[in-house]
């Protein structure tokens, strides 16, 4: 009991430090784990980072340290405004126009919106997107937490296996989808040989089968990424907590549920948001694995948008659907942040930015 209370206290005290570690774990996602930090020799000072140090500088010696002006940030900001923010704003405008890809867009008011929402395929696609997203979160979260905690151990064999587990993430979604499509091919693939497990061998012939394939392939590809996030977070859990729990006689399972899992809170939130946004915008796997079929049984919203705009040359309707996607992804992320109370930790994140 006392260990439990102490755990909470320590958790609170350490939250700022952990938030930073969190941000690092996320930002270093591309780099995988990095070596021990070079400034590790000065633990206390290192935490406050550049800010505290620079403040000391100003108050201490008389030397004025020159700082870069805002001009340094301008090229990248302009570039980003032009090629990411402008189209994001334009998508709203385009959704009120009719445009076939030739000539100029023509204003048509709410026409696209009424048409899109009168289409049962669109309504169905929203539910399918939500289902695929939910399946992704429900399958990948427990898997990636377990794998991440496991990979956080310092054992040599775990490091080697982690290096292999990481491979799917390096491959393009296209390559992964093409590969699984070939492996699961109804005529030449594995299911046609292993009929005792797969029945007639055509996984793409039914809605349940096709959705199962989509969820499975996404899991195969993206679990490594979430594993990495949790691995970073699990490494940041102070060993003292485990030592204390051990003294109190807590077994491995109790340690996992009472120490590791609560300490992974931030990484769980981060990875859930990424899964939700990724799930709602699933596109390549659908295009390559199922083409939205059988029928329109796996036509999820992002694929529907692509069909409307780039196959049906109805770019106005495509823009309207795209806007729905943006709003849905933002809303769900906000809900996750709210429900989990992540926004209350913002003040601590301020130190990071």
């Amino acid at each position, binding site marked *: 009991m006392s260990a439990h209370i102490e755990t909470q206290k320590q958790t609170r005290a350490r939250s700022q430090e952990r938030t930073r570690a969190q*941000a690092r774990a996320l930002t270093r996602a591309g780099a995988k784990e990095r*070596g021990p930090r070079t400034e590790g020799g000065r633990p206390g000072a290192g935490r406050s980072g550049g800010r505290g140090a620079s403040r000391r500088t100003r108050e201490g010696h008389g030397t004025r340290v020159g700082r870069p002006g805002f001009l340094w940030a301008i090229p990248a900001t302009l570039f980003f405004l032009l090629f990411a923010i402008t189209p994001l704003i334009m998508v709203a405008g385009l959704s009120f126009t009719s445009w076939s890809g030739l000539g100029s867009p023509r204003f048509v008011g709410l026409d696209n919106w009424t048409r899109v929402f009168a289409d049962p395929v669109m309504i169905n696609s929203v539910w399918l997107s939500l289902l695929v997203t939910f399946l992704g979160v429900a399958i990948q979260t427990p898997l990636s937490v377990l794998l991440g905690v496991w990979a956080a151990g310092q054992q040599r064999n775990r490091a080697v296996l982690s290096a292999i587990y990481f491979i799917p993430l390096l491959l393009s979604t296209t390559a992964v989808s093409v590969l699984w499509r070939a492996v699961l091919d109804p005529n030449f693939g594995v299911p046609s040989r292993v009929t005792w497990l797969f029945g007639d061998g055509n996984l793409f012939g039914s809605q349940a089968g096709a959705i199962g394939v989509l969820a499975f392939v996404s899991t195969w590809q993206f679990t490594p990424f979430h594993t990495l996030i949790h691995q970073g977070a699990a490494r940041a859990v102070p060993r003292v907590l485990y030592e204390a729990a051990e003294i109190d006689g807590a077994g491995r399972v109790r340690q996992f549920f009472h120490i590791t899992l609560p300490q992974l809170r931030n990484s769980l939130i981060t990875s859930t948001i990424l899964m939700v946004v990724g799930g709602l915008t699933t596109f390549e796997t659908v295009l390559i694995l199922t083409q939205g079929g059988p029928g329109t049984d796996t036509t999820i919203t992002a694929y529907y948008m692509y069909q409307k705009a780039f196959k049906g040359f109805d770019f106005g309707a495509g823009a309207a659907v795209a806007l729905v996607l943006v709003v849905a992804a933002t809303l769900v992320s906000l809900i996750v942040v709210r429900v989990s109370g992540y926004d209350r930790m913002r003040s601590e994140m301020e130190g990071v930015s």
Partner: protein
Amino acid sequence: MNRRPNHLAGAGSLVWLLLVGFPLYVMIGATLRTRSDYARRGPLAFPEGFTLDNYTGALSTGFGQYFLNTVIVTACVVGLVVLLVPPLAYAIVRSRSRFASSAFRLFLLGLAIPAQAVIVPMFYLISEAGLYDNLLGVVLPTAAFCLPISALILSGAMRDIGGELYEAMAMDGASPRRMFFQLVLPLSKGGLSTVVVFSALQAWNGFLFPLVLTQSDSTKLITLGLYDFQTEHGIDIPGLLAAVVLSMVPVLLVYLFARRALVQGLMGVGGK
């Protein structure tokens, strides 16, 4: 702590290893066999006679050209990102101007923008700019979508540079510009290499922008080549998988190389 080996976790991790390795085994096995052998004996059989015909076949269907296009696009994206991000990250970390902190907030916001959301207006913009079916038209949006995470990674690395180093340089009368080139850039090399690897991966694996913004064979990227190969010769599974392997090779080589550099970095820190 727990000195007792965790057998359950060990078993679980082996199951996952099988799951990761299985399709890779099927893939490599299939590419080394003839098409008829694959059709007759199925995907699980071990290759009997080895053949590289699938690879030469894939290369002769245009993958050499797609490969080259992808290399060009990747190099340009990495070049743009490396040119744009370090000054930005420097300003984010060191500048006291309001603009720099709003810029950082803008990039944080940008993290959440999915490419699917902007693809329709992007098509409009790129067509208007006369860059449709031009590799540059793929490079620009791809690079833009690499910026947010790159800015985060690099500013994180730059934040680790101690204030006293800047101070020491200031005593020598260094300008912010000199500090950038002589202090900040050399000390954030690790972060910069992460940014390079990350944006190279994004460019190499990108699919949506090339799918929508190019159409001819001369501008085709490798992912799009795979997609077309599948829709046109979907039955030739060994050939298709050989193309998949070819598209993966550079990425896996980079991974091998980057990981080794990582291990050496670790040993260097421990040894000195």
